[in-house]
């Protein structure tokens, strides 16, 4: 420029602001992504909720619902002449370890049955026979009845007409933990997508940081790209940690390829990221967006088969449940991890996630308010 400055009076030569450096096309994106990752890392609560919590949940539920040996049944034998014989027959049977029996007087035994302390009561008739008292409405009581009767009949000299052998099975792949971990993965991707994108954007809007950013030459697309990229990076760690935990601690078997699992993770993250972006497009206050996020996630926690299979809901609901993005993601992760299903075999689920994510994204970009 050769245009002379008219004001201010040239008392002082304008120091030529020789630019010390030049930024490349992606400098803004790189710094935005770096800033986001640094912020996450420095937020201990976020680290706990994203990484620690799902693992604790898997640990707690995995232990609580682990496949344990058949429950011990607890019975009482009423004090009478045949009682000692009955006790001896049970204790010497092959199943003495699963039946805990004790001799009590009649009143104490019946009271115990009524209070649920005993699953059944055996009353010897004094002539070598027994009367069973049990509650057919309680599954453990029914089980106890069958088991004790079987033991007593066998001990009494019953001859079984058919020879049978039994093989027990408790294979990885069919246990509750195998069902649970993919569900937790899906739920976690939903949580961190909705909160990590939706909540954090509204927070930035409320802090007027978004407005401050658009006051610079920052490209808005770079900003959104950085938000989504940070989701993908985080997803890899989230999925990796929880799966590694399942494999190491619960000896889960992962049948699908890691590439397929990661791809589903990425699709899920982006889809929920899009939904989070849509949720955040207008809200001015973090309180209102929090309510909105919970409102959107609540039905999916219940219906999408995180903790229990949605098969438990009436069949008429299934088509609707299957249209929820979390259902699609959970089903896809389960099929991939537990059955080794390929991406190509699950196009329906893929379509559900892509439509949710894509439509959310398009609407969000249309409605998003930067100021």
């Amino acid at each position, binding site marked *: 420029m050769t245009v002379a400055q008219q*004001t201010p009076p040239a008392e002082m030569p304008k120091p030529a602001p020789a*630019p010390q450096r*030049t930024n490349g096309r992606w400098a803004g994106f790189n*710094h935005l992504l770096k800033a986001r990752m*640094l912020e996450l890392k420095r937020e201990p609560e976020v680290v706990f909720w994203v990484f620690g919590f799902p693992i604790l949940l898997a640990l707690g539920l995995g232990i609580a619902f682990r496949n344990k040996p058949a429950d011990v049944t607890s019975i009482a034998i009423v004090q009478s002449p045949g009682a000692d014989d009955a006790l001896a027959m049970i204790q010497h049977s092959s199943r003495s370890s699963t039946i805990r029996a004790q001799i009590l007087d009649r009143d104490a035994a019946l009271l115990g049955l009524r209070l649920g302390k005993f699953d059944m009561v055996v009353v010897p008739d004094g002539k070598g026979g027994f009367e069973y008292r049990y509650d057919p409405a309680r599954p453990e009581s029914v089980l106890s009845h069958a088991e004790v009767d079987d033991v007593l009949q066998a001990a009494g000299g019953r001859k079984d007409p058919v020879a049978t052998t039994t093989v027990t099975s408790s294979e990885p792949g069919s246990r509750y933990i195998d069902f649970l971990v993919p569900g937790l993965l899906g739920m976690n991707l939903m949580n961190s997508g909705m909160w990590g994108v939706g909540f954090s954007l509204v927070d930035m809007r409320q802090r*007027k*940081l978004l407005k401050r950013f658009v006051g610079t030459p920052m490209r808005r697309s770079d900003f959104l790209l950085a938000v989504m990229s940070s989701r993908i990076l985080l997803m890899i760690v989230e999925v990796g940690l929880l799966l590694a935990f399942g494999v190491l601690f619960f000896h889960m078997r992962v049948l699908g390829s890691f590439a397929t699992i990661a791809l589903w993770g990425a699709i899920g993250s982006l889809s929920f990221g899009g939904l989070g972006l849509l949720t955040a497009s207008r809200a001015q206050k973090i309180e209102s967006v929090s309510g909105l996020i919970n409102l959107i996630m609540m039905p999916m926690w219940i219906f999408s088969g995180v903790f229990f299979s949605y098969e438990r809901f009436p069949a008429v609901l299934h088509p609707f449940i299957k249209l929820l993005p979390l259902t699609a993601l959970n089903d896809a992760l389960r099929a991939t991890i537990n059955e080794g299903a390929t991406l190509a075999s699950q196009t329906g689920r893929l379509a559900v996630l892509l439509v949710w994510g894509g439509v959310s994204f398009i609407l969000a970009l249309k409605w998003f308010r930067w100021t």
Partner: protein
Amino acid sequence: MAPAIECRDLRKTYEGKVEAVRGLNLAIETGECFGLLGPNGAGKTTTIEILEGLSQPTSGEVTILGQSWKTHDRELREQLGISLQETRLSEKLSVRETIELFASFYEHPRSSDEVLEKLQLTEKADSWVGKLSGGQRQRLAVATALVGNPKILFLDEPTTGLDPQSRRQLWEIIRAFQRAGGTVLLTTHYMDEAERLCDRLAIVDHGQIIAEGSPSDLIDRLGGHHVVEFSVTEKVNGHSVDHWRALPGVEGVRDDDGVCSLTVREPHLTIPALLEAVGQRGGELLHLTTRQASLEDVFVNLTGRHLREE
């Protein structure tokens, strides 16, 4: 050469009702420090955000460095530095990381070290933003505006809520930017800030400019450079304002809840006459002070209200 910042007949109506800005004209020359002075709610922030291209005017035209926001958004952004009223920067990033982040948005930013040095933040470079004091945060906000090497600096209430020392530090930084050839537009409701910092200013009230000029010009227009404030016993107070206007050297009179302010040219003539007049009426002076006239007096004179009144 086109003014650095120009707007014509700027209007902004919110939701069809509230008229925040009602026909505002400004022309700010390159190298000037221009202030928008006015009470809270006068429309200063709305005006500056329209000029910054962050908000659309309902009608009117804005030209920055001879260009329009509609056609040259990105080019203009490269040349402006902005500090909004109350931006809360990320608390878990360090000062240096924050400055680097903002620098990364510009094609030719200044070096972070130089900006840190200039804004006296070098010692705090590795502290988290959450640990900074109010003054340091405000300096950081200005640092994020300066790191892009702007030609124009927009500052919305840059020193609100700061202690006197932090305010002076910021004033120094703003002056240094101006000395290096930069143009500054700032809003403030502190008259002392406007008086010390601004080459010219516009007094804004209810979305309109009610006076414009250099601080000394505006004070000159009051007619006198001195203000005599006094209050008297009941007996004399009953008399109307006209009595005081008749005293020698009085240019203006205002009664503010029993405290009378006279704008005077020559206090040494007015005060003896005032004492005599009070004495003649058998009253007593309860209170008497004299001071230099300020922009506050200009504002009060124009609007009948104080700047800080809600």
